């Protein structure tokens, strides 16, 4: 045995939470749910599908994850972790008691930079959010802010790897692959793990951020783009009609049957994969076809505004994918040229207003939309980055990297909203109350999905590899 999810020990689709959910919400898309169920049943008969849904280790509070990763690192003290002392001491050095500070280009000796934005309290919880996110702010009662995350590199790529795979190196599978490995897929017509990078380019960590590492390629993150050809090689070649391809597949499958005995699950799996590929060719375009969405929905995601249209489209797609049983959606705000990243070494104000301008309305709409459809309950939404930014200035008006304490937030999927966990010091430099490392972050996500971090392992080069390696602490307060 070389894995913790031996095919024989996991009942096929025992936990039907998502399917139940589809039926509960069936008023809105009954036909889709039925079609979905039929397709599932057909495939469930094929024993050899490594992606079939697997039972979690214990009761899950979430079935799906949407992880919004903000490339380049938004500043915590300018968004969700207010530090009134910053403006009071702007222009002064940090008190000497803070000691030396590790940034990437600066060492903390630059003067403190005040925040250009005001904070207001929102919701019943009264949690503060800055002017950068007035729309997300309306959902604070559904959000749990964890203000004390720590990563271990001041350089983007290694810190990104740490957030995605728990190591400072690109040597291990990403969390999306681990989750897919642990839970399989609830969609038989779409990939289980979908990645949507910024069209302008990838994060510094590159494709390694969503790599399946040493796991088999069936657990890979599948790139998905908006438009008529969402998945690579999905589109039939010019001149190839569906009917013609069906004829061809019929011949292929007849020959494949010749190669395959009744006990031959490996060959049967290959036959099933062709049928799934055939179905995917119609289902994936349907999944990304936004014409069926109401104008109101599209408007809410900002599809009518130039500055929000692109990110809004991807977040709307994320909702549609999760609705159709996709397990893990990894989505990036920012990537490629510096002008399209949150990496505000200079001109913090312009940079963050631009980047938050792209994302505030769509992120708020996603939360609203998921909630309205009853999907937020079982969908864990994560907003995060590789680190935060320093309280001191760079270039007089920017901020350098700060992995010593920063905020990520969670909503849905069993999360108890309207609270903030952990704290940074009075200037937002270091996590001082309940610092959490990425192993804790990952253990908590697995926990929401009903996965025990120690039971989810894969034997690679003689070592039982796990996402959380030596083990993390589940942030129990995160959950209701």
């Amino acid at each position, binding site marked *: 045995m070389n894995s913790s999810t031996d095919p024989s020990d996991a009942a096929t689709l025992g936990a039907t939470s998502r399917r139940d959910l589809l039926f509960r919400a069936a008023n809105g898309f009954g036909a889709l749910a039925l079609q979905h169920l039929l397709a599932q049943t057909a495939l469930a008969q094929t024993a050899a599908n490594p992606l079939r849904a697997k039972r979690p280790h214990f009761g899950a509070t979430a079935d799906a994850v949407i992880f919004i990763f903000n490339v380049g690192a938004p500043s915590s003290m300018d968004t969700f972790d207010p530090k009134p002392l910053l403006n009071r001491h702007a222009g002064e050095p940090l008190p000497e008691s803070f000691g030396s500070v590790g940034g990437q280009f600066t060492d903390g000796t630059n003067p403190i930079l005040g925040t250009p934005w005001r904070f207001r309290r929102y919701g019943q919880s009264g949690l503060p959010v800055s002017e950068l996110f007035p729309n997300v702010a309306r959902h604070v009662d559904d959000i749990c802010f964890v203000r004390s995350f720590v990563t271990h590199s001041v350089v983007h790529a290694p810190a990104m790897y740490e957030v995605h795979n728990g190591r400072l190196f*690109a040597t291990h599978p990403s969390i999306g692959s681990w989750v897919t490995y642990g839970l399989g897929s609830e969609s038989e017509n779409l990939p289980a793990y979908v990645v949507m990078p910024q069209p302008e380019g990838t994060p510094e*960590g590159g494709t*390694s951020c969503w790599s399946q590492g040493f796991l088999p390629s069936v657990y*890979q993150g599948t790139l998905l783009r908006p438009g008529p050809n969402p998945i690579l090689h999905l589109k039939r070649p010019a001149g*190839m009609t569906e009917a013609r391809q069906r004829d061809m597949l019929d011949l292929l499958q007849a020959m*494949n049957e*010749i*190669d395959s005995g009744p006990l031959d699950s490996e060959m049967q799996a290959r036959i099933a994969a062709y049928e799934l*590929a055939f179905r995917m060719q119609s289902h994936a375009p349907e999944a990304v076809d936004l014409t069926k969405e109401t104008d109101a929905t599209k408007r809410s995601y900002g599809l009518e505004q130039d500055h929000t249209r692109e990110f809004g489209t991807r977040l709307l797609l994320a909702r549609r994918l999760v609705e159709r049983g996709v397990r893990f959606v990894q989505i990036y705000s920012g990537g*490629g040229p510096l002008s399209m990243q949150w990496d505000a070494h200079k001109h913090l104000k312009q940079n963050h207003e631009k980047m938050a301008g792209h994302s505030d309305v769509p992120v708020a709409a996603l939360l609203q939309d998921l909630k309205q459809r009853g999907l937020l309950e079982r969908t864990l939404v994560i907003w995060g980055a590789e680190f935060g930014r320093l309280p001191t200035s760079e270039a007089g008006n920017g901020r350098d990297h700060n992995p010593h304490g920063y905020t990520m937030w969670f909503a849905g999927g069993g999360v108890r909203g309207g609270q903030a966990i952990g704290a940074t010091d009075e200037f937002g430099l270091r996590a001082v109350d309940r610092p959490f490392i990425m192993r804790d972050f990952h253990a908590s996500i697995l926990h929401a999905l009903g996965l025990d971090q120690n039971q989810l392992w894969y034997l690679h080069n003689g070592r039982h590899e796990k996402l959380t390696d030596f083990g993390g602490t589940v942030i129990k307060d995160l959950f209701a």
Partner: protein
Amino acid sequence: MGLVGRALTESLATVAVCLGASLGLAPLNAAGSSEPSSQYWSFRPPTRPEPAAVRTAWASNPIDAFVRQALREHGLEPSPEASKERLLRRVCLDLTGLPPTPEQAASFLSDPSPHAYERLVDSLLASPHYGERWAQKWLDVVRFADTDGFERDGYREHGWRYRDYVVRAFNSDKPYDRFVREQVAGDELFPASNESLLATGFHGAGPRHVTSGNQDKEEARQEVLTEMALGVGQGLLGLTVQCARCHDHKFDPISQEDYYRLESFFGATELKDLPIASEEEIAAQEKAVAEHEARVEPLKAQLEEIEEPFNTQVRERKRAALEPAFAAALEIAEDNRTEEQARLAKEAESQIKPVWYEIVPLMPPDTRRHRADLRQQLHALELHRPDPPAAAFAVANLEEAPPSHILQGGDYRRKGEAVSPGFPQAVGTLGLEAPSVGRGRRSALARWLTSERNPLVARVMVNRIWEFRMGRGLMRDPNNFGLLGGMPTHPELLDALALRFAGEGWSVKAIDRLIVLSSAYRQSSEMDPKQAAIDPDNRWYWRAHRRRLSGEAIRDSALAASGRLNRSLTGRPVRIPIEREVYDLIFTEAEPDNLWPVTPDRHQHDRRSLYLLNKRTVRLPFLANFDQPDTMTSCSVRQTSTHALQSLSLLNSDFMQDQSRSLAGRILRHCGESDTDCQIRRGFEFTLARQPTPAERALAGSFLRSESGALHDFALVLLNRNEFVYRP
């Protein structure tokens, strides 16, 4: 909880207790003992086992005696020999990675001699494709790629010369002990030989952590050392030495001190490109570069001229937006600046530097087009930039080796006790000395590795060969001969092969030949429910292990079937065209218009997959979908997962469309438009190297005679068929 799940740890703890002192770690001992400190089987020298006295027609060579004995012990019978067609396909794919050609098929299938198979095997062992096939395997183990990986993922200008060294080494049947010595210490042991210098690319084959921004030099150095120790540990010794980087190994008798003593052999070693070109070659290259620059220069000048006014505009705008302190510092004449002002001014300069995405939008449309056009011309010219003078992707020794330390928790900032080079105590020194001076450390390691008394190196390699050919290792995980690797299924066979290997000149080809000529290898892979009930995983080899081909072999097979395969050997890596979606995944903050300069000679695009540029962060989807390893860690056995993205690649990708068109064309050239029977027959010969059965003839016939039955679609079906992507 530690390394593994609780239940697992407990069961293993029990095992460890049972093994008692045999696994115990020796106390710290700088000198080291000649004798192994461990009694665990893999650290003890192989014993010469008596082959079982099984005399049947089936047992055609010593391997079979051992296999047959184990089968008998488990109540199993060997399977009948595979059909000639299947055996042909199997042994061609195994030994060369390519399907049989129609000529190979015709000559073998029509040869009634009992020696026909042996002759076929010998011709395959002599084929230059044999070394290519082995190279792919070896490069998986040493996690070779053409780029560094991580954020920068820089191209290694000369990395491919190590790949070619490996191809040549297997083709010439270089004795494995020499192969190991050259890779570990070729520069020290055989300084006169360029080939041995190339071999040391082994140490740099893995990823290299280079990021932008400030990087801690000591940390980076530590990562290089770790990769070097890993290469020897996993690749040559089959030990999970990396587990002892942070703490004593939890299961194997490898202490943290052992690990850092192993690393210390590389204390003086640095990765380096070393020139191997002659003076004439260098002079010729310099001349060619000068000529090239002269062609490029006017284009560059034109581009500069176009961009200049916009650069100025952006620079002025950004200068006006500088924070006052920075702006002021810039105003002061350079010579009059204080230290602080100089720092501010330097930073201000970098802040006001124009970036492409700032200047391009300012240009009027025709200027923008003109600029894009010039850049295209420039990129087209740069495709013909003369190659740099030949250099070895190699290693060199520093004059002095910096002191090595045990690092607590594997953290380079937490230095513990100083250590000097030393051999793992579980194995012992084997009577050899580990020098503490800079030069010669790796030579000592190489000598120890290839000592006839080393219990691991020969065993590990024969097990790799066995796994490669038989589909399952005698040790299931060829990279782990430690406790968690379990016991070999056939310990006596493993030892017999290891002794024969080391005792008879370390010839990989000889072991290969022995294996593929055995009856065990030649069995059918047919399922037998009764035997499967006893041994579902086929641990005892009652049938042959059928295996999905690697992505590389599927691509190569398609090229071979279509008749387009370019069979030339070795050389610079080839960049084939990639999909737009893949291009967009190349990380850059620069202008993204020349990130993947496709190799201009289209004939090169049909080279074997081994020669395609392997960029760690940009995987070719066709290969990646079929479980190509990510090259970040050693891969001893390929994964084989089955999923829909593979089907989509095989049905819809440009590559497969091209190949099926070419295959259809090849069939047409032989058969013409109307001879359907001929088309079917040829289609089967070109793809599966056999004749269609009547049932297949009927299926294909009714397809081709139907309205929609295009020959191109038939060709694509053949290339998608289970049989085509499996080694039988």
